[in-house]
């Protein structure tokens, strides 16, 4: 098991390095077109071939790794921070506030967020820079995903409200802010870390699904999700199996994230 986990950590470090060092590793910029080589087969010049408009698949995969690996944790952090802030309201003793937070969470869990992505894509001007569009896509994912961690935090806070230490702190006249920061946070911290870890693969997968539907990171900036769109054409996959490389990399990252030891295990 230790060997498997070491392999997972190594794979994750390798994928992260691939993303971070993309400008050095990728032979070409992600948007450079070789108009004489549309759909070129793998060769020394194009190790994984070229796409239908002549862009090097290997370079695009390396740049896509940078986008997907760097931004999923940022989106996860946004969700956890929002979830914490909103669920903290349920710590108030008012039943109405608690019910309100629960209802808001349920509504947000059931909203068809796919419309938000449609809206976002339609709102973006055609000359929006790649950095802005990708930040908006992942930012929206982070905002839309606050309800899942909030539900977990709300349940944890509900369990704390009637605990002995909380009652004692209240009886001693400790302010709500101090209770939250000094007394409750140490109990929630490990839960927040666990939620953050759970959300990273969830956002990588969400981006992949949105990318397949054309709602993820917009072209020409590559991401694992929008590179997977080639899988909709089986003839392209048959002609050049390297098209599956983004899927393989995504799966390796996901499995490695799953195999990472959790904090209590590491402590043991």
């Amino acid at each position, binding site marked *: 098991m230790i060997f498997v986990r070491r392999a997972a950590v190594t794979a994750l470090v390798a994928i992260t390095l691939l993303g971070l060092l993309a400008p050095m590793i990728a032979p070409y910029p992600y948007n450079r077109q070789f108009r004489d080589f549309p759909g070129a087969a793998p060769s020394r010049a194009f190790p994984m071939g070229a796409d239908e408009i002549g862009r090097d698949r290997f370079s695009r995969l390396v740049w896509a790794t940078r986008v997907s690996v760097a931004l999923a944790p940022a989106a996860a952090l946004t969700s956890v921070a929002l979830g914490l802030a909103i669920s903290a309201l349920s710590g108030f003793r008012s039943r109405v506030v608690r019910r309100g937070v629960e209802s808001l969470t349920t509504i947000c869990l059931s909203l068809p967020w796919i419309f938000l992505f449609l809206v976002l894509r339609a709102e973006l001007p055609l000359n929006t820079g790649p950095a802005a569009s990708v930040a908006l896509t992942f930012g929206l994912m982070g905002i839309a995903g606050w309800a899942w961690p909030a539900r977990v935090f709300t349940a944890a806070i509900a369990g704390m409200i009637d605990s002995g230490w909380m009652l004692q702190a209240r009886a001693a006249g400790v302010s709500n802010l101090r209770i939250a920061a000094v007394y409750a946070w140490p109990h929630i911290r490990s839960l927040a870390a666990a939620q953050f870890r759970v959300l990273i693969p969830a956002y990588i997968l969400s981006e992949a699904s949105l990318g397949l539907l054309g709602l993820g990171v917009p072209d020409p900036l590559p991401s694992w999700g929008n590179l997977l769109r080639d899988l909709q054409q089986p003839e392209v996959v048959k002609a050049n199996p390297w098209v599956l490389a983004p899927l393989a990399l995504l799966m*390796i990252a996901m499995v490695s994230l799953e195999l990472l030891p959790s904090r209590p295990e590491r402590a043991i």
Partner: protein
Amino acid sequence: MRVVSSLINLAFVVLAGGFAAAALVRFSPGFDVDENSWNPRLTASTIEAMHRARQVEAELPKFYLRYLRGALHGDFGASEAYRQPVSELFRERAPVTARLVVFGTAGGLALGALLAWVAVWPRRAFPELIAASASGALLAIPPAVLALAFFFWQAPLSLAVALAVLPRVFGTIRSVLGDLYSSPELLAARARGVGATRIALRYVLRAGLPQWLALAGVALILAFGLAVPIEALCDVPGIGQLAWKAALARDLPVLCALGLIVTFLVASVQSIGEIVGAAR
């Protein structure tokens, strides 16, 4: 009292969810534009009538109140994209999605339970590692890719849904099974030599019924959520595809009905969980 409070909360959440879904669609760009305005075969008076109808929808609170009044009588309005009553569209498409979702959920739960049983029952590290690895590998594949693969292999798409649901319920099933299998009653039954089938039926299925019901509800919602990308990508004429096409066409009556249904599903599962939890 708990049931009444949950029902009131359910009604409020459904109404608010439907309104929020309608607001999202109403304020999306292109809502005021009807492509039929450029249809040369339509007369000026027809186009004017279409504009007037669109103007009524533009006032969101009025539209929503009128929509709810109609919905209470079973009238969910008419789809602008399909030129057909929404209830009729749902009647035509619901069986397709129901098959996909119900078989997918049942398959996912059954396969997840089987894998979790492999992880828990033998009490050995190797089967547990195999089960966790299989679940982890399935979790690593985007559900839309799984569905595309099944679509091209002409395999049943409900199996793709089942395989997408499996890793998402595996962890919970394993943890519930782990608790049940280490309960004193079950350990005593094993020591008495009670058979595996009897243990599964009496000590696992019956004892953990509330958890199983709650999990089935969550899995059902999960499968319904998966239906949108799967039906859109694989051209399955179900509710998911309808939702996708309605979103692209900003078809407010269809999306409003879908908002109400999805919110109702999610909120009902939560309420049932609360009531069962309180009863225990």
